[in-house]
């Protein structure tokens, strides 16, 4: 990538993990040594990879993995949208609902029955103490908040993630269609 001039402001980046498998985050890590090259240009202000708890007040770019599947995730993604300039739906679960949304035709009750009654031998019950409430219908991120960039793939390849981040760092609008596609 072409690195912006040293004087360029450090770009604040966040990564968020809703209902997904973490594969998109692993693909982010698959940037490998390029992560260390990016390190001086970005500040990873919130991510499962760092020890910061609260989503900061102002984030330049947030990459969101996963679909919206619980009441808590709705609140979370709304809060994130409010404090993010450019929100990227990272991967097919965020973009379409993908695998998590495959539970939609069955309904929450049937899915719980399989896991906690049929496939359990002791204390069969639906866990509900201090736990989020599952939505009747799993949704892609853009059904809940505005998404600025869609980056599909299962997961999007590391090169595609790097391309998007590098374009944004250079002040250009990325065109992910050239580097990834659904189901890739």
């Amino acid at each position, binding site marked *: 990538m072409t690195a912006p001039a040293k004087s360029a402001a450090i770009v604040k980046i966040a990564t968020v993990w809703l209902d997904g498998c973490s594969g998109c985050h692993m693909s982010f890590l698959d940037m490998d040594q390029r992560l*260390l090259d990016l390190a001086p240009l970005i500040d990873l202000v919130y991510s499962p990879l760092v020890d*910061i*708890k609260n989503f900061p007040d102002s984030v330049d770019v947030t990459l969101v993995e996963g679909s919206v599947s619980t009441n808590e995730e709705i609140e979370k993604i709304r809060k994130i949208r409010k404090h993010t300039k450019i929100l990227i739906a990272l991967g097919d679960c965020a973009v379409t609902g993908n695998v998590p949304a495959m539970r939609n035709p069955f309904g929450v009750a049937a899915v719980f029955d399989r896991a906690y009654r049929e496939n359990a031998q*002791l204390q069969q019950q639906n866990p509900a103490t201090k736990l989020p409430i599952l939505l009747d219908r799993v949704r892609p991120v853009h059904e809940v908040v505005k998404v600025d960039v869609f980056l599909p793939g299962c997961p999007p390849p590391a090169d595609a993630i790097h391309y998007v981040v590098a374009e944004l760092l250079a002040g250009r609008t990325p065109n992910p269609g050239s580097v990834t596609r659904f189901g890739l």
Partner: protein
Amino acid sequence: MIDPVTRIEGHAKITLKLNDSGNVVDAMFHVTQFRGFEKLCEGRPMTEMPSLMARTCGICPVSHLTASAKACDALLAVKIPQTAADLRRLMNLAQTVQSHALSFFHLSSPDLLMGFDADPVQRNLFGVFKQEPQLARDGIRLRQIGQTIIQILGGKKIHPAWAVPGGVNRPLSAEDRDKMLAMLPEALEIGQRTLQWYKRIAAHFTAEARTFANFPTLFMGLVTETGGLEHYDGNLRVVDSKGEILVDQFPPERYLELISEAVEPFSFMKFPYYKSLGYPQGIYRVGPLARLNLIDHCGTPIADQEWAEFREIQRGTVLSSFHYHHARLIEIIFGIEMMERILRDPNILDTKVRARARPNRNEGVGVAEAPRGTLIHHYRIDDNGLMVWANLIIATGHNNLAMNRGILQAAQHFVEADRISEGALNRVEAVIRCYDPCLSCATHALGQMPLKIELVNPTGEVVHAIQRN
């Protein structure tokens, strides 16, 4: 007095219960994500399962791919070609190496390098890079080598559609074999260098080793026919905390005779237990520590030497979950040595890599050792090969009872009556990290899990609260 706590990254949280004297008497680890693969697969062709079930986890997708393909082999009622089995074994080992690298370098090395009381802002991989660039580069490179081997075999690093019912979908070329072989010496060098570093610094963490889930449990895992370290095939062995073998060469498809699952209201992750001891006495552990505790040997020269030294830590079995880190590093070395052995066998280039058949049975079980422990996929199909039922027991799930008890032990040691220091907070999290915080199979909560704990008195008043930043 009860209920401290809040959330960790939205996906897991911890409650510490206090008694009247302010001592921690119970700990609950809430896993807050639920995915429903056991149901959502229903009605779909069994042939889709390896690719679909791999989506359970992006950190160890190859484990799910492997266990799923093996369950499908059982549905076809075929014995797959030896080369196909060797190729699957190879990919599974590559994944063990990359996943263990993630756990050790990306997630745990900040604590080990900087100490558990270090500034949380620095306590991540980038902080490691600033302080010890070689360590961070080693971790990135080792993970990259594992991921690249997966890519060479399966076409992509994450969620390769490669293992299929009956084998794998393409044979290996000599050129690709050589590319993989060329990376292994560097991987071995990193593995050995890191293990030596770890052994030097481990001496600084005696308090942690004593209190991070240091208690007797059973251990379960697969072993080879001769009791060696096994990740792809083999049979189940269970040992007790003294190292006595309770069950040996047990066919994994009969897992339901050994273990049952309980549900607790506070977690989406179920609580498997060793059936004959009952619940919750039937607590057992799986994963690298368990595997190294229950085998008779690893089966490769360097790993065997390191394993012998590892077992010197404690007579019987090594009980503290802190030593998962050490075990993981030995398994990295084993994985690299074993991959080399597999690749040096000329039969690895054989082009017969798939047995073809229609479904011949309505029920099949596939079991493999994931990086975090024994992984069980159990499917039922109708006569058309469509899924009617699935049961998955995920590696991390087996450790659920032990994680809860481990959190309790660390909290009792490090949490003062009415105050929690940042260091205590980090140590409570770190207990979970020992088991390898990829709860993503059963849930989420990767890595450095920031959390907030509140201590609340009986009237609901917050006595003390702590959180990061």
